[in-house]
């Protein structure tokens, strides 16, 4: 599962949807893999408005990547910031979480990640 995907995922428990603590989910015991993908600056610039930046900062730190700037860059700034482009490319496009857990900060439920796929099916008492 790409780190990009993680930015679109929240806790599947109904009561957690209204809580700010249910997003982003927190990786635990994460085993990462890196795909070798050609950098596509335009894609990163275009995807910026779709990314929850604060959540991405949290994820980046929790996965042991460099701390991202507090504010998201403007498209123009990102265009000319080769270092940040490279960082974002590595984090969002190339990094895969293969194994581990994603933990909800509100209810504490842990979602298993196996073979790169996160399982969000809930046990019946949580549905």
């Amino acid at each position: 599962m790409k780190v990009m995907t993680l930015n679109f995922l929240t806790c599947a428990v109904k009561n957690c949807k209204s809580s700010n603590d249910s997003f982003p989910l927190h990786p635990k015991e994460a085993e990462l893999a890196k795909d070798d993908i050609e950098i596509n600056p335009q894609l990163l610039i275009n995807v910026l408005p779709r990314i929850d930046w604060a959540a991405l900062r949290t994820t980046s730190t929790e996965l042991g990547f460099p701390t991202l700037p507090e504010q998201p860059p403007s498209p123009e700034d990102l265009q000319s910031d080769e270092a940040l482009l490279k960082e974002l490319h590595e984090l969002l496009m190339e990094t895969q979480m293969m194994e581990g857990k994603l933990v909800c900060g509100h209810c504490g439920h842990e979602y298993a990640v196996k073979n790169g796929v996160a399982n969000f099916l809930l046990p019946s008492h949580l549905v």
Partner: protein
Amino acid sequence: MLPTPDTSHVPYNRVYEPAEDSFLLLDTLSSPSETAFLSSLGPGSGVVIAFLTAHASTIFGTPHVLTTAIDVSPFACAATDLTVRKAITENTSTSGHWTSPIQGDLVTPLRGGSVDVLVFNPPYVPTPELPSPPAAPLQELREKTTFEEDSHLLELTYAGGKDGMETTDRLIEALPRVLSARGVAYILLCAQNKPEEVKGRIRAMGAGTSAGEGEGMGEGEGWKAETVGTSGKQAGWEKLQIVRVWR
């Protein structure tokens, strides 16, 4: 005509085989111009999401489209992942960007306001009751499954409960939370689902029904639902149509 993705690797004894319904979704989606985050629910073999991802430039006018797919079945997730990856390799010049499959129940794992285009080929066949969701042992990918387990997984792909609408109704309820302000959902219905009543229910949702999470609902407008594709009057008992839902 754009080529249909290769699904020769898909184990059809437990994953839904692309049929007329999948191809109707493909035909209808070859025209809109929305872009960005696209999610396919219950992708089965992955043929629809593979097509949309591989031909993103042609369909959406831009390759800057991120795609994902959500299915309860680990086998469908794995099959979809491979179908999409294959299709991308064969269409590198027009492809969008595939993220990952997600194992889950409809849109429950997605954050509010995140989806721009949602595609749903639901379990739409009316049945006395809904099959139970896959229990823990069936949530894991493995080599061998029993005949009963395969039957259960297949049943989940078509059995829709009362009017064939029990699952689709749950998805419709979740749309205000998960669709972005410009978000559009394409939902496949059969005649037994009573499509006119379904569209009526969607239009009656009105502005007040949003859970109010995320970027969710805009100010004051209601929901729209129109039939944008049909399998034609000559089709069999299923008589399929695609309903486009947006606000």
